[in-house]
């Protein structure tokens, strides 16, 4: 009985953590390069739709995943151009993209399938040893991200433009180019995250299906201290919190209200930021447009 419960908890945790981890990795690349990306939520939503659409049209989940990633890159491209080329306020640009994503997906849902609530079912990305393929991909990508950020010269340049763009510029690093890398990669990863929701966890698009997961991923970026391995730990913790809530609710345990599990990730992140649970500090130039001196 206990063993079975632990098994359910572990599976549920991994499932819940997967989209969060993918999106958080995206957030890390963007913020490490110096661009705040609160549009993760909107990018995920657009991608979760396009993944289903591409899958529906071609009947192939591989094309579905590709569609999600391409949509993520294109949508984050708007954020990249606004933030890097036109030096927009990055938070405002993110808010605009999140809002437009809700409208865009609702509009397309209506146009493509003529219905408001959700899409028809498509075939899911298959499972491997009882876990969805996305789970393995997410954790593998976290390790790759860690290697890329901290063990390659590309990663060093990316982090340099996020910490001190002027210094990086002085030694010949192309600040704008590295930031485009950061934001577009965040789009690709948030795109994967979106696809993992709609054709991994479920097999259809549901209106507003991200339901704040992009913001929990943002919390995981911070709680994990802008570090892919930290993000693994953070998303697992948030995943446990989510699945414990569900399990307690299913079993009818009322000692801890489900809402408290729901708020735990956000509360923990606030504590972490305030320095009560290990200090976490953002890349120094994150959120600041870089004006090249002429």
């Amino acid at each position, binding site marked *: 009985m206990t063993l079975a419960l632990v098994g359910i908890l572990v599976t549920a945790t991994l499932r819940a953590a997967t989209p969060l981890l993918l999106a958080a990795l995206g957030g890390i690349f963007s913020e490490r390069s110096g661009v705040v990306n*609160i549009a993760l939520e909107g990018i995920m939503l657009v991608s979760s739709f396009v993944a289903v659409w591409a899958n529906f049209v071609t009947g192939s989940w591989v094309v579905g995943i590709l569609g999600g990633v391409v949509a993520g890159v294109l949508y984050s491209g708007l954020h990249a151009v606004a933030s890097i080329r036109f030096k927009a306020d990055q938070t405002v640009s993110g808010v605009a993209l999140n809002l*437009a994503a809700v*409208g865009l997906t609702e509009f397309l849902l*209506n146009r493509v399938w003529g219905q408001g609530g959700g899409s028809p079912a498509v075939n899911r990305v298959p499972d491997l040893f009882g876990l969805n393929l996305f789970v393995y991909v997410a954790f593998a990508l976290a390790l790759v991200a860690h290697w890329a950020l901290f063990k390659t010269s590309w990663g060093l340049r990316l982090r340099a433009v996020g910490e001190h763009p002027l210094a990086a510029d002085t030694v010949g690093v192309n600040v704008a180019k590295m930031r485009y890398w950061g934001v577009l990669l965040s789009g690709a990863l948030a795109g994967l995250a979106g696809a993992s929701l709609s054709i991994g966890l479920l097999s259809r698009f549901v209106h507003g299906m991200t339901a704040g997961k992009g913001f929990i991923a943002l919390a995981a970026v911070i709680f994990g201290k802008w570090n892919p391995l930290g993000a693994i730990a953070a998303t697992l913790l948030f995943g446990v919190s989510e699945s414990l809530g569900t399990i307690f609710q299913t079993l009818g345990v009322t000692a801890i209200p489900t809402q408290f599990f729901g708020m735990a990730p956000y509360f923990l992140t606030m504590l972490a930021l305030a320095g009560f649970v290990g200090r976490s500090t953002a890349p120094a130039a994150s959120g600041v447009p870089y004006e090249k001196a002429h």
Partner: protein
Amino acid sequence: MHVAKESGLSKAIRDAVEAITVPVLATILGLIVGTVFILLAGKDPVQAYIAFAQAVAGTPRAFGETLVSTIPLIFTGLAVSLAFRSGLFNIGVEGQYLVAQIASVVVGYAIKMPATWPPFIAGMLHVTLAVSAGALAGAAWAGIVGLLKALRGVHEVINSIMLNYIALFLCGWLLNNYLRASSGQASSHAVQPTAALTQGLIEGSRLHTGLWIALAAALVVWVILWKTPAGYEIRSVGLAPGAAEYAGISVAKNTVLAMALSGALAGLAGAVQTLGVNRKFFETTAFVGYGFDGIAVALVGRNHPLGVILAALLFGALARGGPQMQAAAGVPKAVIYIVQGTVIFFVAAEGIWRFLKNRKLKAEVKSA
């Protein structure tokens, strides 16, 4: 070059024109994008816009309903713009709005005015209490963000986002455990009649006296920001925190103050909407969006109370006209979100306008 000395008036006019150029251009671009999407939906834009105009101001009742949609946006727009003026981004209006709704419902329901009191006095007092409770709750919720920024240096955007979601879960929990009339209901107890704002300012519409509170709030914000020492300090911190600190203005104190004032305005939005329209707290798993729209209203309104009122009217009309346009002309109301997102995007990406202006200047220099 000959430079004529400008009179104060013509400078004021030029400033005003400059201030509204970007919002107006962004709005036009938003409508163009909206038109494209209406065409993509295979609908006639002219018909859609006629349906839209009808829904927004076709009858006195319709205009009253447009104002109903405008009222919360005036408050949330003011909330965001006041924070902007002190250099803070209050993206947490959604959460402050929620906790204020709960606070005003609690005070509006639990306190009972003596039946022997004249209705007018009982009403004034009860409404004042319930509205104040909402404002205080919003101020406290936002004050947490201000305090954490002032004391621990934590960026306000992240904590505001976190507190939005905490508020969402907290309010759900409070509703579930303490505020429901019975367990089957999806809403709280209704407030007492004495705590409700009177509806029907325009006959047949739900337009309520919260409109006067909203306009008064805009005036008060203007007075605070531009006619009081406290407002001068808040704006100084927003323009140049380093210089303000050097001049003896406490950045920490003003950060907390500005966040709390901004939260109080967000709280007013929640309280007035509750007492004027909903009369109770409805179960929700998502944000209503007044807070996010407030960001748009503040940006388009150039963070000035008068601009905020006009921008709130624009976004109030969009909110009111969208669903009606869907019903009357078959245009998906999602187009409205796309228009809103586009307007915000183009106001945010101000660099685009500077870029276009500079290119025009360069072209003129070349041809000269």
